[in-house]
């Protein structure tokens, strides 16, 4: 069935801040198992789109259908609950908590222990705590920063912080992982390592939505790409086609890639 292949549909999503139209009826479709790129010049509305999708903003028009269910974008924690995890453009970690604690917070959603369990510390709670710690360790391994597990998040290097944010997002068991400029500020080696990581995440069954400025990374990594400009989607296709789209070249890529 066609619908089961589609993970996320955005229908004419619109958002404005005062008189500024940040998103103008943006529609796009993300299929299961793909790495979907969302690019565009600064201020094109990419992050606004992310924020609407993850419930941080309330979009004025349009709606999202995720995994066959219409999203009621009223609370970010509900978006996380149905399987949308995200990272932030300006890394938002829990700085005064250790790396492993950051990932353990990500398990909050999929675990249950309450105050009483915490105080009594019964067998079920202890087992759950152990499982949370184990999963967090696995995820730190997975993103490659296990040896920094007990360092405060704010003491990690920039690249490690980006990885930690991805580990924390993965801890919520997402179906869709939305990465907001994960390669920003990274050098060539770090970007390459990130590419390998994102490919691995996708191979392990998580669909990825990627906002990125690094056009080379997007073109090499993504199965499909949409381009936003002034809040409007001006192109959507496989990278090779998007790259040759005259509107895209005019709006954004210019001579830098062509």
């Amino acid at each position: 069935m066609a619908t089961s292949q589609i993970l996320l549909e955005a229908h004419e999503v619109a958002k404005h801040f005062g008189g500024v139209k940040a998103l103008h009826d943006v529609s796009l479709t993300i299929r299961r198992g793909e790495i979907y790129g969302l690019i565009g010049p600064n201020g094109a509305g990419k992050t606004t789109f992310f924020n609407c999708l993850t419930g941080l903003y309330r979009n004025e028009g349009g709606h999202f259908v995720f995994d066959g269910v219409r999203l009621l974008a009223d609370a970010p924690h509900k978006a996380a609950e149905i399987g949308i995890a995200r990272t932030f453009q300006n890394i938002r970690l829990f700085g005064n908590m250790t790396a492993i604690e950051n990932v353990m917070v990500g398990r909050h959603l999929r675990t249950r222990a309450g105050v009483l369990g915490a105080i009594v510390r019964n067998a079920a709670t202890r087992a759950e705590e152990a499982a949370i710690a184990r999963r967090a360790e696995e995820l730190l391994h997975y993103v490659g920063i296990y040896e920094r597990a007990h360092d405060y998040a704010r003491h990690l290097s920039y690249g490690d912080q980006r990885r930690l944010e991805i580990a924390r997002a993965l801890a919520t068991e997402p179906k869709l992982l939305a990465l907001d400029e994960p390669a920003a500020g990274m050098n060539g080696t770090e970007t390459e390592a990130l590419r390998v990581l994102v490919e691995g995440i996708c191979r392990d069954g998580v669909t990825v939505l990627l906002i990125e400025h690094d056009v080379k990374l997007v073109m090499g990594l993504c199965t499909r790409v949409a381009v936003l400009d002034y809040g409007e989607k001006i192109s959507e296709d496989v990278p090779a086609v998007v790259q040759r789209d005259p509107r895209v070249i005019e709006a954004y890529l210019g001579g830098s890639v062509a």
Partner: protein
Amino acid sequence: MSATVVKWSLASQRRWLGVVLMAAALIAVPFIAALGGQAWVRIANFAILYVFLALGLNIVVGYAGLLDLGYVAFYAVGAYAYALLASPHFGLHLPFWVILPFGAALACIFGVLLGAPTLKLRGDYLAIVTLGFGEIIRIFMNNLNAPINVTNGAQGITLIDPIRIGDFSLATSSTILGLTISGPQKYYFLLVVLALLIVLINFRLQDSRIGRAWQAIREDEVAAKACGINTRNIKLLAFAMGASFGGVAGGVFAAMQGFVSPESFSLMESITILAMVVLGGMGHIPGVILGAVLLTGLPEALRYGIEPLQRGLFGRMIIDPESLRMLVFGLALVLVMRFRPAGLWPSSQRRRELTESVD
């Protein structure tokens, strides 16, 4: 292998030694304090009572990062709950083991009621609103003597029952195995037991799913939401848990004093408790305990020490100890914030402890 076993057993021996010494010290305190008069035992009792309050506030301020300036409201709720249910005022004389949990639960409910309207507020705004709530509760206590006399207004409620187990009252002194134990000393032991329980609960909450969620909200509320934390519920839980400790403290306070009046629950009290948390080390249980003990003990020591000192130096009293107390209090806050902004005993050692335990 054998080396690590030896090391471990040494460590555990030292730990047990620490526990035994701590226990001995806790038992000795009321007897040593009594050498200086029963007043000092009462001061020790208040120090522990403030440990309850500071640890309760620490959940809200230290863990969840919500600046609450009206915490004393929950202390008042607990105290009045005890006073009304165990005094001639309504002719009710319920036993303490009914009232203390009831007072804690009632404070919990007030925590949620007062927390709910503030959920969208942060920082200064939250502080101002909670400050207002604290005052509202106090003013209610002050004016709820008409048309129906509930709280007896500014006169307060007197003749509150002491805590009593059967015929064994904590208010009077009695002789056990040839050892005479005064009323305040009995309360001291009750308070220590409760304090140990509260400290244990705090440690367990800190390293739990809920504790991590609180800290996540403190660190970055938006990121916490994006991680799937229902910040509304988790914040209310922080208010409720923090308030419940205040309620217990209030109940014991009412029983110990035998008298409550709105005067005891002023804004100054909220600020003092907050100062204990901040000065000791926000979010760090031993630090908060230290802050509570220091800020209760030092002003008293000052009060008793400064008078003979001034008489010795100048032959008469120049500065009233009470005004000097506020001066020293303020100076201590300024100095700590200048030189140890994270508090006297912050949780910086935590990371080292963790890496050591891995080794």
